[in-house]
């Protein structure tokens, strides 16, 4: 094929799939983009892409978890002492709140999958966001309390226990890990706002719900990070 560089590239005859994009008589979903064969392939590509992104997110949080392991290995008793100052019940309630939000998220995807009304879809999405805000509210209260008693690392860090240095390391990691997680919650709520608006505009149906599905993957991932943060930060050592 001679390429002149003039931009006039005429591809040779290509195999036209009946009902596919080459077929002039094809009736396809308006959301099917021209470089995909069908809706299933388009959905698979998006979902896989989201999973590749989530793997990078695993490594992103993984760095913090690695730091946590190294410093906890260096001062196990100090971490135990520092962890006891966290409110175990607020942490457990927040875990439950996020699990509830994951349930409503899964039901929101299902509502789109099963062609349910936009009211049902939007309802589940709004409840999911509401749980997200609830989580952030409880987290904000916990942060406020830590500032109040002086457990924030830095020049004003106050610790009357046996291991002030390790406790400061623990709270550095606590704020970094929960802070990055809270940032992900805020991003998640922003994504859900967009998805909710699009759902209200009747964008999603049984044929095309990939954006809800992919946003849901992100939401569930953030839930999983908290599932690990809760025991690692709140439940170290004896609470007996």
């Amino acid at each position: 094929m001679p390429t002149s560089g003039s931009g006039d590239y005429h591809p040779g005859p290509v195999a036209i799939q009946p009902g596919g994009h080459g077929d002039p008589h094809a009736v396809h979903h308006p959301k099917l983009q021209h470089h995909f064969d069908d809706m299933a392939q388009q959905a698979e590509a998006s979902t896989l892409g989201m999973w590749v992104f989530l793997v990078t997110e695993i490594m992103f949080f993984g760095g913090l978890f690695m730091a946590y392991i190294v410093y906890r290995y260096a001062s196990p008793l100090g971490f135990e002492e520092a962890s006891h100052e966290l409110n175990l019940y607020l942490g457990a309630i927040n875990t439950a709140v996020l699990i509830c939000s994951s349930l409503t998220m899964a039901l929101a995807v299902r509502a789109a999958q099963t062609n349910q009304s936009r009211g049902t879809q939007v309802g589940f999405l709004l409840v999911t966001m509401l749980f997200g805000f609830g989580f952030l509210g409880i987290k904000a209260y916990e942060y406020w309390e830590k500032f109040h008693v002086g457990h924030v690392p830095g020049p004003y860090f106050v610790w009357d226990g046996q291991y002030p240095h390790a406790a400061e390391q623990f709270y550095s990691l606590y704020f970094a890990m929960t802070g990055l997680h809270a940032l992900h919650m805020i991003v998640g709520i922003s994504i859900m706002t967009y998805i909710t608006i699009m759902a209200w505009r009747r964008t999603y149906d049984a044929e095309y719900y990939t954006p809800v599905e992919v946003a849901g993957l992100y939401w569930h991932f953030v839930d999983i990070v908290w599932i690990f943060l809760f025991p690692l930060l709140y439940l170290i050592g004896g609470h007996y």
Partner: protein
Amino acid sequence: MSGHVAPKGLYYTIFAALIFGTFLTVVVAKIDLGSFNNIAMLAIACAKASLVVLFFMHVKWSSRLTWVVVCSGVFWLLIMFSLTMSDYMSRGWVPGTWK
């Protein structure tokens, strides 16, 4: 489309299991099991995460390629943890090396 529609009841069951797991973690933290406490709470967390990944994130019904991507993420995370800790935990084993 190819997406698998899971029955609502399955989602409620997974939800109940996750809440039970959270409850169990808190209960286990209240019982003195020595170093087994850490193992127990991490085992419960891994079980909960697996339930979320398999059912809420639909990996159970996803393509083989998705499985490979998910597993490789976890695998590389474990490589990072094990290689880093094999360094930190073995420091000072050889006389004269830095502890």
